[in-house]
C-alpha cells in the first residue's frame, strides 16, 4: 500500500486518494514541461499534510514552520533571483495562522508562486475547521458546526491587487499543470488556490462534489485583465464554481525595483567584507 515518490525515494504518507497527489503530479509535469532543472527550483512548504510535498519532489526545498511560506520564500528569491521559488501552503497555513503575510507578499509582488492546497480543513492535525470551511461544517473542533463565514481568498487577493490569481482543482492535474506553467511564466507573485479533496476528514467536498461544479474560466471567454469581472467570478458559488485564471496583470516586481539586485549577480555570489572607511567618513551620524 505504501507508495514511493520515484524521484526522492521517500514513502508517500498521504492517505491513498488524497487530493495532494494531483497537485504533486501537476507540479512535476509543469516543471518538466518547462524544462527547469531540480537544482534551480526551491520548494518552500508550510506545516500540514500539504507540507510533506517537499519530501516527494527532487529539488531544493525548505519545510518552514506553520504559516510562514511567504516571507521565507521572498528572502530566498531576493538572494538568488535565478531560482524558481514555489511555495506550497495549506488553507490553514496560508489563510489561518499565516494570513498576515498574504497581503504583504501581494504588495511586494515578488516573483514567488504560492500554491495553496485548499482542503478546507486542518488535515494533519486530524480535521479541525479551517478559514475556508463552510459555515455550518462539522469538524473535530466544531462539533456543532462552524459559525464563522469562510474567507474568499480569490476575492481577497484580487481586491488587494495581486498580479496573478488563479484557482485549480486537484482532480484535474492536466489543467492544474497548465495553470502552474502559466503562473511560473508570469513575472511577479502568483496565488494559485487549489481545491484539494481531503478524503479522510471531509465527506462533503469530495472529488465528486467538485467535478459536478467546476468549470473552466478560459472556456467562457473570461478576460483576466478585467478586475471587476474577476471579482464577480470570485464570488460565484456554489452550484457552479470557476477554476482557471481569474486575474492577471503585469507590474514591476520587487526584484526589479531594488537597484541592489537588478541587473547584478545574485547576492549569494557577491564577495563579503565591504569597506566601512567611506561610511565612517561620510556618515558621522546615522541615527538622526
Amino acid at each position, binding site marked *: 500500500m505504501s507508495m514511493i515518490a520515484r524521484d526522492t525515494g521517500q514513502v508517500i504518507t498521504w492517505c491513498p486518494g488524497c487530493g495532494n497527489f494531483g497537485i504533486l503530479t501537476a507540479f512535476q509535469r509543469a516543471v518538466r514541461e518547462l524544462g527547469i532543472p531540480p*537544482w534551480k527550483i526551491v520548494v518552500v512548504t508550510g506545516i500540514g499534510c500539504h507540507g510533506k510535498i517537499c519530501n516527494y519532489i527532487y529539488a531544493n526545498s525548505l519545510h518552514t514552520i506553520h504559516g510562514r511560506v511567504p516571507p521565507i520564500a521572498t528572502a530566498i528569491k531576493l538572494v538568488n533571483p535565478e531560482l524558481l521559488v514555489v511555495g506550497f501552503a495549506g488553507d490553514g497555513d496560508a489563510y489561518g495562522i499565516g494570513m498576515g503575510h498574504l497581503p504583504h507578499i501581494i504588495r511586494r509582488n515578488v516573483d514567488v508562486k504560492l500554491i495553496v492546497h485548499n482542503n478546507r480543513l486542518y488535515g494533519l492535525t486530524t480535521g479541525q475547521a479551517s478559514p475556508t470551511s463552510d459555515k455550518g461544517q462539522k469538524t473535530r473542533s466544531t462539533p456543532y458546526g462552524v459559525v464563522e463565514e469562510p474567507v474568499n481568498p480569490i476575492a481577497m487577493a484580487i481586491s488587494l491587487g495581486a498580479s496573478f490569481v488563479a484557482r485549480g482543482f486537484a482532480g484535474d492535474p492536466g489543467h492544474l499543470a497548465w495553470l502552474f506553467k502559466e503562473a511560473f511564466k508570469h513575472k511577479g507573485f502568483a496565488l494559485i488556490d487549489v481545491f484539494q479533496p481531503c478524503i479522510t476528514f471531509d465527506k462533503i467536498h469530495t472529488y465528486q462534489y467538485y467535478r459536478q461544479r467546476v468549470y473552466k474560466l478560459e472556456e467562457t471567454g473570461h478576460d483576466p485583465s478585467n478586475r471587476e469581472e474577476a471579482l464577480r467570478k470570485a464570488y460565484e458559488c456554489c452550484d457552479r464554481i470557476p477554476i482557471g485564471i481569474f486575474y492577471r496583470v503585469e507590474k514591476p516586481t520587487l526584484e526589479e525595483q531594488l537597484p541592489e539586485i537588478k541587473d547584478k549577480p545574485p547576492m549569494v555570489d557577491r564577495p563579503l*567584507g565591504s569597506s566601512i572607511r567611506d561610511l565612517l567618513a561620510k*556618515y558621522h551620524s546615522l541615527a538622526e
Partner: protein
Amino acid sequence: MLKRFIQVLVGGVAGSGSLTAGAVIGRALHRLGYHVVGVNEYPSIIRGGHTAYWVRAGVEPVYEIDYPSDYVIALDKATFSVHSRDIERDTVIIYDEESLGKQDVDAVTVNVPFKRIIRENKLNPLVTNMVGVGAAAALMGIPVTFIEKAIEDQFPRGGPLVEMDKKAVILGYEYASSMTENIEPARLPDPPRRGRRVFVTGNEAASLAMVRAGVRFYAAYPMTPASPILHYMARISREKDIIVIQAESEIAAAQMVVGAAWAGVRAATATSGGGFALMQETFSMAGMFETPAVFILAMRAGPSTGMATQNGQADLLWTVFSGHGEFPRIVVAPRDQYEMYNRVIEVFNLAEKYRVPAVIVEDKHLAESHRSIEEPPENIVIDRGAVLSRREAEERIKRGWVFKPYEITETGVSPWVPPGTPGAIVKSESSEHNEEGYVSSHPEIAAAMYEKRMRKERFLRKEIEEKHDPVKTYGDPDKASLTVYTWGSATNAVLEASRHLAGRGVGLYVVQVVYMAPFPVNRFMEAYEPVRGKPSLTVEYNYTGQLGKLIRMETGVRADGHIGKYDGRPFRGIELAEKIASWLRR
C-alpha cells in the same frame, strides 16, 4: 579649574533639540581627542515631555556618566527638578531667565538670553539649543571651529538650518565669552594626540560591523531601541548593495533572515524583547535547520511594552534558553561600542562555522549611547567556515563529492552548499530529518541527529574559550576587596564606580561575562579561582540578578549579593559606588 573629567547635561522639552545639542558637544570633545561618552534619555513621546543628554569627557577613559554635571544647559524648567542630583554648588547652569523665570538653585547660574538673541538676530527658534551650546563651549574652552565641525558631523547632509545652527553657536559663544570673568569654569587638560577615532552608538557600531562582515540581507520590523539599525542599513543599502526589507512583522523578518542565510548569504535582523518574543518559533527553527541566522536583541525596560525608551537587562535568561527544544546557539553581550563592532563580526564567523543561530544582546543604553572609540579595524578575519561558495561547491561535486545537507560528522557541523548549485539538492526540514534533509522520526535517526546538533556545542565552546576571550576581567584580584560579576553596559558603570571606590580604598575585581551561551565555564572558573571564597556581587540592570543565576547554574559559583537597577535609567558612577559601599557595610 582643571578637572580629570567634565560632564555636561543638556535638558529640554522633546523637540527643543536638547539631544542634538548634547551630541554636538560630545562630537566636538571627541574631535578634540578626549574620551567621550554621550547618553540620552527621552520618553516614548514624539514631541513634548522632557529629554536630556549627558556628555562626559576626559583624557583618561570615561566609562559611564556620573553625578554631578559640571555644566547644565537648561532649555526647560524640568531640567532643574528632574535632574536635581546632577546639580551641585559648583555646577554651571546656563539658562535664559527671560524664558524660564529666575530659578532658585544653589549653583552657579549663567543667564544667557536665548530668546532675545534668537529674536534680535532673526534666527529660527529651532536653533535656540545652539545658542546654549555656544555659551557652554565658551565656558568650557572648546574652540568654536570644533563646534562647527561637530555640527557638520551631526548633520552630514547640510542645509540652511545647519548654517543657522552655526550662527547661533557663535552668538552664544560670544555672549558667554564676554561674561566669564566672575566664574571659574571647569575645564579639561589639553587632550593628547590619538590615532583615528570615531564617535558612534552601539547601534552604529553593530551596523558598521554588519557591513564589514558582509551582510547582504537585512530585514527588520521597527522597534525601539533597535530601529536605528534599520534606518542605517536602509540608508546604505544602495551604496553597499545590501537588501534591506522592512518586514510586515518580526515573524516575517526572522523568517526572511533564516531564508536568506539558508540561501547562502550573511543575514541579520534586530529587534527588542517584544519582537524577539515573536521570533522565538523561528529561532527554534533556525536551530533545527542549523542556519546561521543572526539576531540583535536590543533590550529595553520590560516586561511587555514596558518603558519603550528606557534601559534594561532583564531578557538574559530568556534569551539564553530561547526557543522550544534544545539546540546550540551563540549568545554574546558586548560591553561597549568598540567591543560591539568586533563581537558582531566574530559572531558571524562563529555562526557560519558551527551553523548555529546567534543572538547579540545589547541594552538600550549601549544601543543608543555615543562613545568615542578607536576607529573600528578593517583588517579583521572573515571566515565562512562551513558555508561553501557555489563555485567551490560545484567544483567539489564535480570531483565526486556527495553533498548531504545534514551529514553527520565528528564535530556535528555539516558543510553547507547554497541552493542553486548544480549537482546539489539542498533540503531543510523543521521536522526531525535524516542526513539528506528528508523527514524522519525513526528513533535512532532522531537520536543521532539530536546528538549531531548538540555535539557542535562542545566544539563551539572550546573555540570560544580558547580564542575569543569570553570572560574579561578588570582590576587585580589579589588586591580586590570585592568581586563584581557583570555584563553588557552595566560593566561600564561598575568600572566607573570602581574609580570612586578606589579612592575610598575599596578595590574591585570586575568579571565581565561576554559569551552567555555556550557558557565559557573554564574561562569563568579561571577568572574566579583567585577570588574563590571572597565576597562578590552581581551588578545588572535587572531585579533578579540573571547573570548571577546563570553563573550559578553553569559553575556552581554563587554571588553573595545583587545590586540591580530596574527603573530604566543607567547607574551613575558615584551612585553605584555608594550602593556597593553600603552593601559592603551591610
